[in-house]
């Protein structure tokens, strides 16, 4: 795997302008809860972000209702509905909220999606067993960008 991905990187670097290595979660620069720079240096893919809203470690609609996602059942009521969210927040603010909502809303119940330490009794996924070694953030840098790109499509006006 190691060698293949190194080889792949060479190919990619040769083919396209270099995508910067995403910052480690602890190195993301928050200003007033917002993150200005794309974590990947690339725009996100709203269609991929839309999928993350419904499943896996994203599962945003566990807590938020979104009219545009009506094809998936059971939207939660724990957080505010996200309709029109792009009218209320800038892209940088949305990136900050998705990456680590606690920077914008101290003590919020919303999980931090681009963070990987500082937890109490961190588990190995949903097994109930102790985590082994370093944790991955709940979403990859790319997924954060994809979700932000999707949220930017949620406009009322």
């Amino acid at each position, binding site marked *: 795997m190691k060698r293949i991905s190194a080889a792949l990187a060479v190919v990619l670097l040769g083919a396209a302008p270099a995508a910067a290595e995403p910052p480690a979660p602890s190195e993301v620069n928050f200003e007033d809860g917002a993150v200005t720079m794309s974590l990947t240096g690339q725009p996100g893919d709203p269609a991929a972000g839309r999928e993350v809203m419904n499943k896996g470690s994203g*599962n945003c*609609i*566990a*807590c938020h209702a979104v009219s545009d996602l009506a094809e998936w*059942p*059971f*939207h*939660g*009521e*724990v957080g505010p509905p996200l309709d029109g969210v792009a009218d209320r927040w800038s892209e940088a603010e949305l990136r900050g909220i998705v990456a680590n909502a606690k920077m914008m809303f101290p003590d919020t*119940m919303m*999980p*931090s999606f681009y963070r990987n330490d500082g*937890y*109490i*009794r*961190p*588990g*190995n*996924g*949903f*097994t*109930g*067993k*102790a*985590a082994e070694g370093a*944790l991955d953030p*709940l979403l990859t840098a790319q997924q954060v960008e994809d979700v932000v790109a999707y949220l930017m499509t949620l406009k009322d006006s």
Partner: protein
Amino acid sequence: MKIIKALSATALALALAAPAVAGPDDDNLMINGDLNMVTETAAPDHLGGALGSTIYSGWRFRTDETQSLQTDDFDNPAMLFIDQAMDLFNTVDGTEGKSCASCHDGPEQFAGLAATMPKVIDGKLVVMEDLLNGHRAKAMGAEPWKWSGDEMQSMVALIGLQSRGMPVNVAIDGPAAPFWEQGKEMYYTRYGQLELSCANCHEDNWGNMIRADHLSMGQINGFPTYRLKQAKLISKHNRFRGCIRDTMAETFAEGSDEFRALELYVQSRGNGLSVETPAVRQ
């Protein structure tokens, strides 16, 4: 309720079509047509208003279909386990050649006990499972039952049933105080990679939907509960473990001192509600 039951198919269709319900419903829980249960009552003082002025049983948050299974013992699937426990009560086990019935007239003798558990005995916080395994070891010379196994939870349910309709009334002061404090601390700790505490879901968001689940106050007055999804009796500690696991945390073990303390604290949040054992849940 009877009418509701007859219409349950329609009710289900409506529930699916209607927007998410907020808060508990207004139904009354009457069992077997004569046992009236207290499913809402004044919140205990020690909560300091954290749940508002009123606490509600988890029964009030369930669908009419699930609720109706608890209104008549002939419909309550947990009663199969109660029957099994009655058999176990009379079954000789262990090196002393005794059954529960060798020393106790019958389960009725334990009316009221479950309403006051957990409690501190000789400096140790003791839950019902400890009493049962303790007597099995000491009086019967029998092997301990597995914490969440059918035998153990059937017997916990049978003993609990003897208190059905009585108000939950656990002591939180005196020797119980330090255990209660430990349980309270746990209740407000945000465990796991999702950093969620019991209070995040069951205090800040009771009545709200979290994905497909209608959040209750997380009361344990109906435990062990028959869970339709698992088709068996679920212990309190198993429920705690499941909820902590869902926060992407390392859980505590069933039968651990941590879960004993948490059980005392959670039980005290339901002081005043009727014991509903064995309740039925989705």
